[in-house]
């Protein structure tokens, strides 16, 4: 199946700084991507998504960038807060089965007060 991976396993940032979490994917035919946030003891929660016909999408304090040329995704969190501390996963929708998602290895974000 598709392969999705992350560059950094852990990221520590100071409260108030911006955070950038990166992700690489392998299937150039993938057309839809999602970032999930998983807090301790909980299931992953949807943060933001992006389709392959877009380069950038903004939400509340979060921005996802998609670079199809190098098959790279990033999640930017503005003014990082302690509540942002979690593990973040990118997920790539399967190109053959649109109901399947393949998850990257995850980045743990630690926000220091």
């Amino acid at each position, binding site marked *: 199946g598709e392969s999705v991976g992350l560059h950094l396993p852990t990221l520590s940032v100071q409260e108030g700084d911006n955070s950038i979490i990166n992700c690489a994917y392998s299937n150039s035919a993938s057309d839809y991507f*999602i970032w999930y946030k998983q807090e301790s003891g909980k*299931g*992953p929660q949807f943060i933001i998504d992006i389709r392959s016909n877009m380069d950038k999408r903004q939400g509340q304090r979060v921005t996802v960038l998609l670079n199809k040329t190098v098959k790279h995704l990033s999640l930017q969190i503005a003014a990082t807060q302690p509540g942002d501390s979690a593990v973040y996963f990118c997920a790539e929708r399967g190109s053959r089965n649109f109901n*399947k998602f393949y998850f990257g290895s995850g980045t743990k974000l630690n926000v220091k007060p």
Partner: protein
Amino acid sequence: SAVISQKPSRDICQRGTSLTIQCQVDSQVTMMFWYRQQPGQSLTLIATANQGSEATYESGFVIDKFPISRPNLTFSTLTVSNMSPEDSSIYLCSVVFPTGNYGYTFGSGTRLTVV
């Protein structure tokens, strides 16, 4: 938004035994999915639970080890059979809802420890 309830939330089981995990959704969904998340790892799809037909398993997962039931459009179970310590993981139920974004909504997971 719809709610997914998983039971049990956690369990400690003896090796060689089996555990059945339940997933209940408060609205009808066509497809339900079971994922495994090993300690400190990402999520791996085990199988797709299809209503009215057998589950579809991913490579590396077999029905004898992870039998799945899907009796209706709001409920599914995953059984972890003949458990060993290597089965210690979080098991997550997820669904795709027909409205809103096209991603998964996850249950809170079942944390399984096999001793």
